[in-house]
């Protein structure tokens, strides 16, 4: 995998018509048409133009035909093709977003769910269409002191970028509360932006609406400028991606990490606090952005193993082979569109692997996954056999006496 900086350099200013002028364009020319990308893609069989064929068409000057198909609406930005490509072509990072943007423009009608999410994000700064003022309302539901920078702008070590799902979705708020408690117990110096925070413009939206993403980048950068902090920590792996790979193109300079690796850094202090035994057989679902794109495979597992009583079991596809929950790349707002194409949701497919492990708990680390998998559990009728929990929730459950 390339270092973040190198990828960014390659992406800057790359457009389809000038693709071959860039280093990445030259790399695309080296494609050996092995088809690994198409074979590894979780929706490859449903795409008329999976990555390999996109490259064929591009070389043949027939890319317009690709734009006119809806193939890339089935791309969930899972980074599988890119991770597997023997030529290290940055498919998910560079080529696919460029093609997606054009396909979206030509689509006769944007799927209503996606349209609504994009409009809400534009208007309210979150896909839920909730008021920005309520973004920090969840902090009144716990006893942990949480500093909002607008109220107390003194310098802080960690700017905790909470993101939309943890701010507004009731199950996301469970993870927000758990995270806040853990940060507090670890004595981390952290603060949030509260109502000033807006969607980071995650990978999904970046690929469909680059203009909106840029507006969000501009906005968030203007807010970051107001305060002094050392680094950003976020629970949302998509936001991590945005800050790590896209924002630096706009002179963003902060170190960013995700909550899971941040907690892992403090494991020596955290582990002794985990005094309550949880007698669970747990399987962990690797989030695409956290795992494949950023290489955090061991940290979530180490955190889970630190909980007394927890035994880990792996699914058939795990770590870099993990199957996406289907929420990335805008998939979070295309469920009905998939259904109308008669395509199984990836969360339902993935759940079969979860069930096959015999685990009682499915542990996740990305806010999309809790709602997606809890819904899949209902549909499969497995509510009595398995529960879905964010890693932070499990850690809090294991805290003795807190």
């Amino acid at each position, binding site marked *: 995998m390339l270092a973040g900086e190198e990828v960014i350099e390659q992406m800057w200013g790359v457009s389809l018509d000038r693709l071959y002028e860039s280093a990445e364009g030259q790399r695309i020319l080296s494609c050996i048409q092995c088809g690994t990308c198409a074979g590894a893609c979780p929706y490859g069989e449903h795409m008329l133009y999976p990555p390999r064929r996109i490259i064929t068409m591009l070389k043949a000057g027939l890319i317009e035909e690709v734009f006119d198909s809806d193939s890339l609406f089935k791309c969930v930005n899972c980074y599988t093709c890119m991770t597997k490509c023997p030529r290290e072509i940055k498919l998910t990072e560079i080529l696919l977003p460029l093609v997606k943007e054009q396909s979206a423009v030509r689509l006769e009608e944007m799927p209503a*769910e996606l349209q609504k999410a994009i409009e809400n994000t534009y208007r309210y700064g979150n896909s*839920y*269409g909730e008021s920005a003022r309520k973004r920090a309302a969840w902090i009144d539901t716990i006893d942990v002191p949480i500093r909002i920078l607008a109220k107390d702008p003194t310098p802080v070590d960690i700017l905790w970028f909470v993101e939309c799902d943890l701010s507004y*979705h*009731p*199950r996301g708020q469970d993870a927000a509360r758990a995270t806040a408690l853990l940060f507090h117990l670890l004595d981390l110096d952290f603060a949030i932006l509260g109502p000033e925070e807006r969607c980071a413009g995650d990978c999904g939206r970046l690929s469909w609406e680059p203009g909106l993403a840029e507006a969000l980048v501009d906005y968030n950068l203007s807010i970051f400028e107001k305060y002094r902090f050392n680094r950003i920590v976020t629970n949302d792996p998509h936001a991590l991606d945005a800050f790590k790979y896209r924002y630096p193109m706009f002179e963003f300079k902060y170190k960013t990490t995700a909550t899971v690796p941040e907690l892992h850094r403090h494991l020596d202090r955290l582990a002794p606090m985990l005094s309550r035994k949880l007698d669970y057989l747990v399987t962990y679902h690797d989030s695409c952005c956290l795992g494949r794109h950023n290489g955090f495979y061991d940290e979530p597992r180490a955190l889970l193993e630190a909980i007394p009583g927890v035994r880990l079991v792996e699914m058939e596809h795990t770590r870099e082979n993990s199957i996406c929950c289907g929420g990335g790349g805008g998939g979070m*707002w295309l*469920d*009905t569109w998939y*259904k*109308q194409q008669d395509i199984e949701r990836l969360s339902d497919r993935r759940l079969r692997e979860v069930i096959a492990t015999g685990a009682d708990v499915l542990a996740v680390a990305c806010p999309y996954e809790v*709602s997606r998998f809890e*819904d899949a559990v*209902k*549909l499969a009728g497995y509510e009595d056999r398995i529960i879905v929990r964010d890693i932070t929730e499990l850690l809090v459950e294991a805290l003795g006496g807190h």
Partner: protein
Amino acid sequence: MSISIFVIAEHLEGTLADMTFEMLGKARQLADEHGGMVTAVLAGYNVAQLAEQLGAADALILIEDELLAEFAPQPYQDVISGLIRERAPGLVMVGSTSMGLDLAAALATTLNVPMLSSCIDLSVEDDAYVVTSQLYGGKIMMETAVTAGTAIAQILPGAFRAEDGQRAGTPTLEEIPPGLHPENFRMRFENFIKPEAGDIDITQAPILVSVGRGIQTQENIALAEELAEALGGSVSSSRPIVDQDWLPVTRQVGKSGMSVKPRLYLALGISGAPEHVEGMKNADLIVAVNTDPDAPIFSVAHYGVVADIFDVMPALEERLGERVS
């Protein structure tokens, strides 16, 4: 102040749209309270027979021409702007509909008069029409007073009751020549494309009987259908019902389905997941039936019943039957 309101009638394929009656009803009420005239303006071709449904108006101005047979923005703007310039009514009511959106702004610019969009209420105070408009999708209301001259008000569908404007009786009829300038028309009506006859549109249903996984089997959906019929509503559902193909996707309420705002939303065996609530939280009245007293649906419901839906459904139906007979 004496009322002088023009209502621009909307019709499609020989039928007057509800929008027309909604605007007429409100105009009539103001004229009854304050005195004055309500004039309906009917532009079209072979539409004279619609006059007998426009009894809520005092007068009807009929303008007929082949070029007005179907709505096209330019011919309509042409005849209506000429008429308004000549008669100078106080207020012109236009629907906030596909037709009205094409018409209102153009009339306002042509005549150089104010235009008020997204109006949901109208009253008369002292010497002014006071128009209430929605801003930010209804989060903020704005009141504007129109004191002199003519103003165009674009009325949101559903702001007033159509029943109030549905009165038989033919108003005084005045037919005027169209005086069109076809040489200026750069748009013309081609043909009318009808949507495929599909499933019912749950966003239009006044009452929704909505079922969730509590309904247990596909066969039981018939019970909900019966209840919906007794209530005069339609059946909608949560997503798992659609995922199991028990109902078509057109019936799904929520984040990845439809957003609905019926007068009554009866949630039967629906837990109230945030993705579901996103699509129905704005219903006028939400009644939830669930066996679980902690179900999140109760936090958005106006009335909650902790009970088994299989007890509640037949009991409700029985009561409704009694009321009918």
